[in-house]
């Protein structure tokens, strides 16, 4: 791993945001127990943020190969519809989740095929499914919001185990697993090598196309499970709204977390924190009572601030300016 980690700056941004919230509302981080489970703002942030986290997890690997997957939001809509259709025809929970994750992986496989085997630009290749995916989801749902009445299914998104919300638990487990997979095996090295220089990695004997394609499959599977959580969260499959613009938040989480958009560098931990940052930001807007019409502005400003904090170039320029001043005086 390269030494110029952006993680401390991301943590600083997050701490700043939470600090501002604490000043305005000292109870911001308070967690109480209500009806036998944890209850409080941090719990909300983790639960509501779990979907962005999961999307971002899959995207991390894809972006590290130098690609991008714009279709994840649409895949969420498709797999949500798959869940509704399966459950409403009496399928079991395990089969439903497997089908949804499978459908997501299949979609990712399609993207991988276009990108890795046929060589279409990732933005274009995944844009196809981003546009077509909503249509597919609409077709599956028949243009309606499908209601899901299945307590076991809803438990995945809104349930608690020993008072701890299930969705973040599942997602954190997936993060730990993925982190171990990329850092304890050679997988992370392969992905970063392909992202850094595909030709060189191929000459070094790496099946570069396969690594790339598998990253898209993994990303699709993550989006598939996000679809499960999204549908379970609102007890309905909404082909139009589910996962709408979710890809943008997820890409932001990945990039602010230190994974390079140009590929070749990835940070699972950074993605996790990036997703928390973006969700904390959304929650802050609700708490500060920022009028909806101007809410995007502070959001944009904070994103800009974090990006500036992370910019090596800006930091060295400021440092140079500082030095010149000192030299002059």
């Amino acid at each position: 791993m390269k030494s110029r980690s952006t993680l401390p700056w991301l943590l600083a941004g997050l701490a700043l945001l939470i600090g501002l919230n604490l000043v305005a509302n000292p109870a911001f981080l308070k967690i109480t127990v209500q009806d036998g489970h944890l209850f409080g703002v941090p719990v909300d942030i983790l639960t509501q943020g779990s979907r962005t986290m999961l999307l971002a997890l899959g995207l991390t690997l894809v972006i590290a190969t130098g690609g991008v997957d714009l279709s994840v939001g649409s895949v969420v809509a498709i797999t949500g519809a798959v869940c509704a259709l399966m459950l409403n025809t009496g399928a079991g929970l395990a089969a439903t989740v497997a089908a949804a994750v499978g459908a997501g992986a299949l979609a990712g496989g399609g993207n991988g095929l276009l990108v890795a085997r046929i060589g279409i630009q990732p933005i274009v290749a995944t844009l196809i499914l981003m546009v077509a995916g909503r249509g597919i989801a609409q077709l599956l749902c028949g243009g309606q919001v499908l209601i899901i009445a299945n307590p076991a299914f809803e438990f995945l998104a809104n349930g608690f185990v020993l008072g701890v919300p299930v969705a973040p638990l599942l997602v954190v487990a997936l993060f730990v697993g993925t982190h171990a997979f990329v850092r304890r095996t050679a997988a992370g090295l392969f992905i970063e090598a392909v992202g850094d220089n595909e030709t060189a990695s191929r000459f070094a004997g790496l099946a570069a196309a396969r690594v790339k394609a598998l990253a898209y499959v993994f990303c699709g599977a993550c989006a598939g499970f996000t679809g499960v959580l999204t549908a379970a969260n609102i007890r309905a499959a909404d082909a139009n709204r589910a996962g709408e613009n979710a890809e943008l938040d997820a890409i932001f989480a990945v990039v602010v977390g230190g994974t390079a958009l140009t590929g070749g560098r990835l940070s699972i931990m950074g993605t996790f924190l990036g997703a928390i940052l973006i969700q904390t930001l959304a929650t802050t807007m609700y708490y500060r009572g920022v009028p909806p019409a101007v809410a995007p502005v502070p959001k944009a400003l904070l994103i800009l601030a974090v990006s500036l904090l992370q910019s090596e170039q800006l930091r060295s320029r400021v440092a140079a300016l500082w030095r010149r001043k000192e030299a002059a005086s």
Partner: protein
Amino acid sequence: MFTLITRQPFLFLAAAALLTVTGLFGAAPKKTLKVGFAQTGAESAWRTANSDSMKAEAAKRGIDLKFSDGQGKQENQIRAVRSFITQGVDAIVIAPIVETGWDPVLREAKRAKIPVILTDRTIQTTDASLFVCFIGSDFYEEGKMAADWLAKAVSGKGNIVELQGTPGSAPANERRKAFADGLAKYPSLKIIDAQSGNFERSGGKQVMEAFLKKHGKAINVVYAHNDDMALGAAQAIEEAGLKPGKDITLVSIDAIGEAVKAVAAGRINCTVECSPLFGPKVYDTIAKVLAGEKVPKKSFNQDELFDATNAAKALPTRQY
């Protein structure tokens, strides 16, 4: 982003309880009335209910309706209008897909002396004589009805949190303004917080979760710009250990099937309908126009309101 979702707020609107048909059509014309209807397409349940209403009402009144599905393309609609003109229909109804580019074909209709009525969406034209009138949904009135109902239900007192639609969208703007105007008469009814839930269920749920933690028990009323957000908020209220509909009063707009069910079950207190059933009003207007009466240039479809008193009764007649 795509044409399919530009009408999102309306996508899942429920079909409505029957509007009373006025006896204006009593003097039945001797020859069958021929009406051409250029529909946008069949992109949503709301749209389908809209088409069904036009067809069913035509059948009921013995009108020969030429129905054309534009499949989301203006060129199909223009072609349909031309064919209506050659067929010599008595009136043309258009639900324009886009606002511009209608002048030439409308001029042809005018030359053929066929009155044109626009429904649902309006057009931009320099010559307002090209169409007789526009009939649409009144988002403002919907917000007003919600405010009036609420003032009565909570006897003019309470703290309201507002779940707004997508910032900048027409229904969100109108429903916000109307509600605030409606509340002006009741100084003890206060909006203590407002945020956008983007017309989404998960948005409504997320914002409501935050509101519940921020304001705690101070919240008496939730006003949501659409049913999806209200349903999401109801869920958030339940998860916070409160009873939606009892501990907190929920008022919303659209009257989609699920929401009317929720009203009947007492989880939501009231939902104002944005009706897709334009049929009766459109044919009434055509009858007036053909009889030479003056009609208002702009008029709105009448919306209904569902609360505990009539929701359960309305359920069986809901079309979806």
